[in-house]
C-alpha cells in the first residue's frame, strides 16, 4: 500500500535567504520572537498552527474556501457530553483522558478485535482535508481536518456479506464527561451509516485539526466526519465500531424522531420542523449564505440516494 508522507521539513522551516543575510537584525528580532514563544506557551496550538496552514485547494476533495480560524473551530462546539453551551466542551473537557485509547471493532466482520489507537492508525493514509461543516442549527464552518478514509479501516477488518450498516459508539465516562451525568440525551451517544456511505472516499475518521492533534472539544482522539451530512452525524471520541445487518439507532433520532432522521443529509429543501434549513451563517460572516444540497457535495454523493424520497428519508 502506498503510504503518503508529508515532507518532514516544511518550506517554512528552511531559513530564507533574506534572514540569512541579515543575521544581526535577526538576532534582535529573535528577542522579540522569545515573546512570541512565550505567547505560544500561553496559548498552545492556537494561532501558529493556523498561520502555517497552506491556503487553497490541495486535493480533489478539498474546498478552496477560506478555513475558519483555529479559535473559531475549537471554542464553538456542540459536544453535549461536556455540556450544552457552545463554550462548554472547551471549558469542561480538561479531565477527559484520551490516552491510552482503544477501539473495539465487532459484529459482522471476519476480524473483530480491540485495537490500541496507535495500532489502528498503522498503515493508514493520513491526509489533510479541508471540508465544509454544516450544523443542523444553521451555522457552518470550513475546517482543515486530518484523518484517513473510513473505507481503509473497513477493508482491513473485512465485513461479512451481512454487514449493511456501520454503527458507532462514543465513550461513556460520566466521571470525566459532566454532560453524561444528565439525561437530556441517551448515553452513550450512538451514530450510524449505511455501508455505501461509510465506504465513500469523503467519509473520514478524523485524528487531527489544522495539522495538529485533535483537541478534546472536537472529539479527540478519534471522530467521524461525513461532510455532506449535518454535523451531529460526526460522532466523537469513538470507542466502538460495529458492523450490522439492520439500520442502527442514532442518538438524535431517538431524542426527537420527527426532527432528526437517520440520513440527515444537508438539504435546504427539507426544513427542520422548527427552523428553515435554506440558509446558514458561516461563522465569521455577517450575512447568511445559501445552503446547498448535500452541503455542496452533491456531485460526489447524490448518486447514493438516487430514487429515494429525501423528504421521507430525511
Amino acid at each position, binding site marked *: 500500500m502506498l503510504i503518503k508522507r508529508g515532507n518532514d521539513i516544511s518550506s517554512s522551516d528552511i531559513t530564507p535567504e533574506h534572514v540569512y543575510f541579515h543575521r544581526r537584525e535577526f538576532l534582535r528580532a529573535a528577542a522579540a520572537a522569545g515573546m512570541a514563544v512565550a505567547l505560544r506557551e500561553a496559548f498552545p496550538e492556537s494561532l501558529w498552527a493556523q498561520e502555517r496552514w497552506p491556503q487553497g485547494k490541495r486535493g480533489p476533495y478539498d474546498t478552496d474556501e477560506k478555513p475558519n*480560524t483555529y479559535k473559531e473551530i475549537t*471554542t*464553538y462546539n456542540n459536544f453535549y457530553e461536556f455540556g*450544552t453551551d*457552545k463554550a462548554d466542551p472547551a471549558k469542561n473537557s480538561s479531565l477527559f483522558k484520551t490516552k491510552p485509547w482503544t477501539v473495539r471493532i465487532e459484529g459482522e466482520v471476519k476480524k473483530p478485535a480491540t485495537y490500541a489507537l496507535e495500532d489502528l492508525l498503522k498503515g493508514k493514509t493520513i491526509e489533510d482535508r479541508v471540508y465544509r461543516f454544516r450544523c443542523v442549527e444553521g451555522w457552518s464552518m470550513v475546517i482543515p481536518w486530518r484523518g484517513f478514509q473510513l473505507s481503509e479501516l473497513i477493508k482491513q477488518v473485512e465485513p461479512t456479506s451481512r454487514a449493511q450498516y456501520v454503527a458507532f459508539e462514543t465513550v461513556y465516562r460520566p466521571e470525566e464527561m459532566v454532560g453524561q451525568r444528565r439525561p*437530556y*440525551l441517551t448515553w452513550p451517544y450512538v451514530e450510524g451509516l449505511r455501508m455505501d456511505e461509510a465506504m465513500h472516499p469523503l467519509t473520514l475518521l478524523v485524528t487531527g485539526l489544522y495539522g495538529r492533534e485533535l483537541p478534546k472539544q472536537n472529539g479527540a482522539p478519534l471522530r467521524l466526519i461525513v461532510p455532506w451530512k449535518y454535523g451531529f452525524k460526526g460522532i466523537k471520541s469513538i470507542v466502538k465500531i460495529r458492523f450490522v445487518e439492520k439500520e442502527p439507532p442514532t442518538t438524535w433520532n431517538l431524542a426527537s424522531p420527527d426532527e432528526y432522521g437517520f440520513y440527515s443529509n444537508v438539504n435546504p429543501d427539507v426544513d427542520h420542523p422548527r427552523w428553515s434549513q435554506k440558509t446558514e451563517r458561516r*461563522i465569521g460572516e*455577517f450575512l*447568511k449564505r445559501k445552503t446547498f444540497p448535500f452541503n455542496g457535495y452533491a456531485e460526489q454523493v447524490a448518486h447514493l440516494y438516487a430514487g429515494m424520497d429525501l423528504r421521507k428519508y430525511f
Partner: protein
Amino acid sequence: MTRGDRIRYVYKPLVALLALLPLALLIWNFLHDNLSVNPLDDITDETGTWTLRFLVLTLAITPLRHLTGWTTVVLFRRMIGLFAFFYGTLHLFTYLYLDRFFAWADIVEDIGKRPFITAGMTAFLLMLPLAATSFDRMIRWMGGKRWKMLHRLAYGAGIAGVIHYLWLVKADTSRPLTYGAILLFLFGVRVYVFLKPRLLQKSSPARKEVPSA
C-alpha cells in the same frame, strides 16, 4: 429630601442603571471580542433571556409585596416591566435585522410556520399594549380597574415567553422549565392571596349558626 424624592431621584435612576447593565455588558463584550465566535447568536440569546428575566421580575413584585408586606417595591414595577419590553424589542429587532435582514416574506412565513416564533411574537404583542398604556395619564384615562385588567396580560406574555424558550431548545429543557416553574409559583401565590380571605370566611361557622337577634 423626602422619601418620595429619594425614590424618584435616587432609587429609581439606580434601578434603571442596574437594568441597563446587561445591555452595557453585552455591548462591552461585543466590542472587546469577548463573545463567542457567533456573536449574533449570543446577542439573540442574551436579549431574549433578559426579556424573560425582567418579565419574571415584574410578575414577582406583587407576590413579593403579599409575602413580605414590603409595599415600596410596587413603585418599581412599571419600570421593570418597561425594561422587559425594552429587552424584548431589542430581541425582536435582533431577529428581524441580524437573522432575517428584514426579509418580510420570510418573517411572515416564520411566524406562521415556526411555533417557537409564533409564541415569541405572541409574547411581544402581549407586551405592546402594556408598554403603550404605561403613562400616568393613560391609567387615569382608562380607570384603575380596567387598566389593571389589561395589565394581567403580563402573565400571558410570561407564559408565551417560556413556551417560546421551551420550543426552541434542542434537548436540554432545564432552563426554560426553571422559568416556567418560577412563573407557576408566582401565579400560585396570587391565587392563594386571592382565595385565602374567601376560604377563611366560608370556613368560619360562627356567623351562620348564631342567629341575628
